[in-house]
């Protein structure tokens, strides 16, 4: 019975939609894709992660119907069409026991470039600062560098991490550490007893709420990118992905849905 059903769906899966790009968006797009498939039984949605740059390139070359980019399009990419389906904020995190309550932009820059190496220089307890940075190629890193106007080769880090969870575990296990991760994930973990705290940025509290109302400065759009104005199946999917029908999915992954 089951086999017969799946054969049926393979044979009649006449339409296929390919999405590639940002690994931040990929899990979200995969969940939205599942719901889209349920409503459109003859459609298959194929989601592949590979970074925002790949998403933009694939959309341009026609390798993907839709590219995923967790950043705004760059000026040289303006020939493409993009639509934001959600927002994600990036916040600095410290260990809960760290008495430092806020940092100026210049202090953050000095910490990340190795000019400040001890917490007592900026009002904390005596102890070496452990700078946690992201691995090259991640859009979180790109956004962080862009906001503080840094080059990755300027950064003197002590730990380099891959995903958000590794960053949170690293900071939670080291009272001298400072890192930056997706605000949604950090806020969820902080509320669930993980010993970390989000730092305000320029006096603005790092919270999903402030990302939503646009007052938090370090945030990024999660974009779906197409080569031309979307048509047909791609248009139907993008309309669906930016509709209220997927708000619960967006929020379940700690992103901020955008109304269109």
């Amino acid at each position, binding site marked *: 019975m089951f086999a017969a059903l799946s054969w049926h769906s393979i044979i009649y899966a006449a339409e296929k939609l390919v999405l590639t790009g940002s690994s931040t968006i990929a899990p979200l797009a995969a969940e939205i894709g599942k719901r889209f498939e349920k409503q459109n039984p003859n459609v298959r949605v194929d989601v592949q992660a590979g970074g925002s*740059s790949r998403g933009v390139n694939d959309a341009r070359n026609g390798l993907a119907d839709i590219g995923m980019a967790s950043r705004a399009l760059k000026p040289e990419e303006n020939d493409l069409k993009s639509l934001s389906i959600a927002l994600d904020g990036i916040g600095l995190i410290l260990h809960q026991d760290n008495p430092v309550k806020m940092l100026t932009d210049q202090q953050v820059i000095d910490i990340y470039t190795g000019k400040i190496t001890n917490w007592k220089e900026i009002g904390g307890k005596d102890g070496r600062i452990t700078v946690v940075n992201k691995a*090259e190629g991640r859009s979180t890193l790109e956004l962080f560098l862009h906001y503080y106007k840094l080059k990755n080769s300027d950064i003197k880090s002590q730990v380099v991490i891959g995903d958000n969870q590794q960053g949170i575990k690293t900071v939670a296990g080291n009272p001298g550490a400072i890192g930056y991760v997706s605000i949604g994930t950090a806020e969820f973990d902080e509320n669930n007893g993980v010993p970390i705290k989000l730092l305000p940025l320029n006096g603005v509290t790092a919270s999903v709420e402030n990302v939503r109302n646009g007052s938090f400065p370090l945030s990024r759009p999660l974009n779906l990118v197409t080569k031309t104005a979307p048509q047909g199946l791609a248009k139907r999917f993008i309309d669906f992905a930016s509709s209220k029908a997927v708000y619960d999915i967006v929020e379940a992954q700690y992103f901020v849905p955008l109304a269109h």
Partner: protein
Amino acid sequence: MTSSKLNISSRLHINTLQADTWLRLMLISAATIAAGILLLITLFLLRESWPALLHVGLLRFTSDTGWHPLEGAFNLTPMLIATFAASAGAILIAGPLGVASAVFGHFYASTMTAGIFKRIVALLAGIPSVVFGLWGLTVLVPRIAEWQPPGASLLAGILILVLMVLPTVALTAEAALNAVPESYFRGAKALGISHGGIILHVVIPAARSGIIGGILLATARALGETMAVLMVAGNVVQTPTSPFDPVRVLTANIALEMAYATGDHRAALFVSGLTLMLLVIALATVAGRLGGRLHG
């Protein structure tokens, strides 16, 4: 009666012959497939790393200012050194420890203790590497950080690797000790050599090719281990000057950046893969030579 007996035996004979041919064919194809896959992987690695070898050139992988692939710097040397340091450190600790535990289990422990001990070692061998990594990240690294921040370091990587390769050394050493003929032991005993003397000067030398083989196997595993080291070693690209420095090993570099790499960056990651593959092949060759010489 006789004719039917003859008939059966000749049929059996023919069947055996046929079975032989079939077995031979099956074994040949299995061996060809195994060797072919290795060859294909090497060719694939070469093809994927070719653009980087062409655009960047071999020399720059050792002479660039650092590893900043998005800014066009591709120096792999610090990561190569880190890989060597982590593996060497792990083997220096796990080697003697593993051999000692095998000797203990084989010669000194009671049958029951030896049985329990062997089970524990085998269990240790079966724990997935990501579990070691998680333990390292949440328990080991914070302990080291209290003492020598940042905690995520070469030392943490070495200690995790020790746990991971110890069973390999212990189990292969145990098997090598088992393979030493009982008569060696009895002969030495008859000559009046002490228990400890027999183990140190008769049994271990007789088992050394097996023990060394196991250590080389463990080295290959340490070189190739990715997840656990990635989680505890800090992953900063630099040449370590102390065991408390964070380092990035070649495997971790591939795992961290592959999903996001395009163009020359991606090809440069394949170059790190190719380098690792060559290292392991070199190790296997040395192991083969050494094994042959010791046996001869």
